[in-house]
């Protein structure tokens, strides 16, 4: 197959954002909305085609594209395997929903907003496709620019503080990763990750390099104690910004652990496992407790994101098949559920312009459709069997029980706390008797909102009951990942003896 399908996938949103830039401002910006909806749907269809034509029995990277880029130094190399394809699908699936959501919620500078979202989509797909460390870094870092603008321009009252915090935290983490990438180049002579997998980085370097990558991924995940930018960014970002941040940007770090940290630095990964376990457990329990105390809906969901990402890091570093598949599944599921929850908050925020839990109550009598969907997503978030939320957490816990039962038991406490804050949130927002007068005047969800939320609800339930397509896609790649990890570890240990 010579057709450069991955490059097309990456640059399609970018090209269409250019067309939006050129398009004339009309009333309500219809042309830019149509272009962006159409192009993001086209990207989605293309990515589905990519999934369909991916050979699931091969652990190798497929659709590989190589172009010489910086002399004989770095190649522009793209490729996908069973793990990255799911993240690409998640990205291309969430983006059209974001674009549709902004028809209701963004009133000001719509054109620029759509351009920013589409550029962000390009960069996010690029992150998941790149097979070269420098290219990865390029896409990873460039995503800061549109997100900074999205939070800063269309955000809430404290948007400047949040945008700065988001940008500087992430940049600080990432520059160390850049040092590590360049160091890897001088150690191995290449930045092509398929080559680096074969070369095996010497044991002495691994710990420092692992820490440098960790500093970037830990900020992005975000792990305790560098998670503090996330609640601020989520609260102030516009709805679509929050959705992209929660659903996709956070997943880059989990993907980074799987793609880079574990295969490239197996010894260091094993060495630092206790650190990851400790931070994950703190994230799960501590941030769940913090979430209980929030009076702002978005902040509550943001803290629950940190807790859910705690399961992800925990699962990845079990190095068991259940754990890793579970954490990937958890990432996909959290991508769908948190997107849905942020959209739900966006729906009422557009009407009442308040995110405080105390402003609401008794919605079930006046917005029945909305309340039903909200309840569904809340239950999915707390891990109700039959939704994707359950499977992810269940597999991660299964995986971690094999390695360390104390950690697994502590992580299970998080499930209980998760149920507590989600149910309490639902009780205060959806139910309750003290109904304010403003609530009585609210209109129920309109067609567009129903469309977005039911699509998400459908997939949350569908993959909750029938997760097989996802696991089939992952199966061979994850097996290969674990196999390589163990082999690598043994080889380096033999060298040591």
């Amino acid at each position, binding site marked *: 197959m010579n057709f450069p399908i991955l490059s097309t996938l990456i640059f399609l949103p970018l090209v269409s954002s250019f067309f939006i830039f050129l398009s004339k401002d009309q009333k309500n910006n219809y042309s830019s909305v149509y272009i962006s909806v159409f192009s993001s749907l086209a990207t989605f269809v293309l990515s589905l085609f990519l999934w369909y034509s991916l050979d699931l029995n091969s652990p190798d990277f497929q659709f590989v594209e190589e172009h010489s*880029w*910086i*002399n004989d*130094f770095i190649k522009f190399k793209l490729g996908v395997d069973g793990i990255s394809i799911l993240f690409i699908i998640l990205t291309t699936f969430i983006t059209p929903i974001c674009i549709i959501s902004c028809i209701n919620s963004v009133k000001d*500078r719509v054109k620029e907003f759509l351009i920013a979202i589409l550029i962000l989509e390009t960069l996010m797909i690029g992150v998941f496709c790149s097979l070269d460390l*420098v290219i990865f*870094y*390029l896409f990873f*870092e*460039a995503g*800061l*620019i549109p997100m*900074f*603008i999205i939070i*800063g*321009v269309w955000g809430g009252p404290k*948007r*400047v503080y949040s*945008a*700065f915090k988001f*940008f*500087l935290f992430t*940049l*600080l983490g990432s*520059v*160390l990763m*850049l*040092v590590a990438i*360049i*160091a890897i*180049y*001088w150690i191995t002579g290449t930045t092509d990750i398929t080559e680096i997998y074969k070369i095996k980085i010497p044991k002495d370097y691994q710990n420092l390099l692992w820490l440098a990558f960790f500093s970037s991924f830990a900020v992005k995940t975000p792990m305790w104690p560098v998670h503090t930018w996330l609640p601020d960014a989520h609260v102030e970002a516009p709805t679509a910004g929050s959705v992209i941040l929660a659903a996709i940007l956070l997943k880059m770090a989990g993907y980074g652990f799987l793609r880079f940290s574990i295969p490239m630095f197996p010894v260091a990964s094993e060495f630092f496992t206790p650190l990851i376990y400790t931070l994950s457990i703190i994230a799960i329990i501590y941030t769940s407790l913090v979430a209980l105390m929030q009076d702002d809906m978005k902040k509550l969901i943001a803290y629950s994101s940190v807790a859910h990402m705690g399961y992800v890091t925990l699962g990845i570093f079990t190095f068991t098949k259940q754990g890793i598949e579970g954490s990937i599944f958890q990432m996909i599921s959290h991508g769908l559920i948190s997107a849905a929850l942020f959209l739900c908050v966006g729906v009422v925020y557009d009407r009442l312009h308040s995110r405080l839990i105390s402003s609401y109550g008794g919605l079930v009598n006046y917005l029945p459709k909305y309340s039903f969907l909200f309840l569904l997503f809340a239950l999915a978030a707390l891990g109700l069997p039959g939704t994707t939320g359950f499977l992810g957490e269940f597999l991660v816990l299964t995986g971690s029980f094999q390695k360390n039962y104390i950690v697994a038991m502590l992580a299970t406490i998080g499930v209980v706390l998760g149920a507590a804050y989600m149910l309490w949130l639902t009780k205060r927002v959806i139910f309750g008797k003290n109904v304010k007068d403003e609530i009585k005047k609210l209109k129920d969800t309109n067609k567009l909102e129903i469309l977005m939320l039911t699509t998400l609800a459908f997939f949350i339930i569908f993959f909750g009951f029938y997760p097989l397509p996802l696991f089939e896609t992952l199966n061979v790649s994850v097996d290969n990942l674990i196999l390589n990890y163990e082999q690598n570890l043994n080889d380096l240990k033999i060298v040591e003896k």
Partner: protein
Amino acid sequence: MINNLNILLPEIFLTLSIFSILMIGVFIRKSFNLVFNLSSVIIVITLVMILNLPTQPEKIFLDSFVRDNFSNFFKILILASSLFVLNSSKTFITENKIDKFEYPIIILIAILGMFFMVSSNDLILFYLGLELQSLALYILASIDRDNLRSSESGIKYFVLSALSSGLLLYGCSLLYGFTGSTNFDFIANELDKQNTGAIFAMVFILVGLAFKISAVPFHMWTPDVYEGAPTSITSFFAVVPKVAGLALLIKFMHIPFANILLEWQTIIIFISISSMILGAVAAIIQKNLKRLLAYSSIGHIGYALAGVATGAKSGYESAIVYISIYVVMNIGAFSCLYLMKKDGKYKENISDLSGISKKHPLLAISFLIILFSLAGIPPLGGFFAKFYVFTSVIEHKMYALAIVGLLTTVISAFYYLRIIKTIYFDDSSISFDVAKNKVAQITILISCSFLITFFLYPSLLNNVVNTLLIN
């Protein structure tokens, strides 16, 4: 001898044309426009001449003048950047009534001085070139002679620069005394670690050069001169002499001081780290854009010096790439200043930019691109500049330098973000006059499109720069 003079053809042409347009300026009244346009034409002709020169290295005048790829590259960079700086600022010059016919002529003289600087292979020629350049720059700094701040900046620059020239000359004479020659190649052979006197000489020369490129701790003049001088002069100061100064520094480290690498390396590392830190920290509290750009240029010189500090060919090359991209970014940034005009007066405070993204979306997006590039965020050109420098720094296992450098990148990102915040996040309070300065707009367009598209073919500059230095 006469046959060899064609090696000097660009310099001879430049000298003769300076004399002739000086005559035109003296004898024709109100000749600013004519002289200005003629000087642009002269720059273009000189550019074409240099492009057509053969590429093999040649030396004349007892090996004191060398013409090779290295000098040609820097001459082209100097000419091209002067052309853009000069033309984008023309409207500014006439509107601020500094349209004296001497203005473009003095710039040409400064260019001539820089030509000899980058081509010199001898202490005497190098010093003459440097002084010709500095003399022209003193006048340029105080060209707005009725303005107190401009005169002040001129005097300040003159006093401090004269001191540094003195140190430089003292270093040169020491070097001659300890090695017995003024020729670079000869000095390179004579120098070794036992020659303690020559190491003193090296320190003096380094101090002088560090002053010219405004590296910490010899940077004190920069913010005041940048702020005091008219913007058109500041943009020249920020770009062209820096290029020549860095070229000379690289040349000194590469040829005469190649054998005492360990001695000067420590000094350069110190200068580099302190420039990066000061450039990042001091810029945070600035309110004036020109002053902020002054501190940012100090920081950028620090990054370029990090490449020089490796003491290896790849490091020098990365520094050259860095300074080339820096030139493009700064020309773009200063051209944006020419469009910030309100009621006939040019604005230069950051607060004057508040909320311009609504009324001037194109100016805002240009600022955005240039500032993110200055901050070194991928995929813009500024990132690759830093990337190449740190690649060679890490190649030579100077991890501490790399980590300090990248951490200061984060700190300096803060003040670039602050400007972007003012442009995009703050409420609109100002709308500038309709811009009539088409050249500045075109310059911004060129600069931005270079920075955006650089990632498509990032080895373009490297391929050129790779041919400059001979082992």
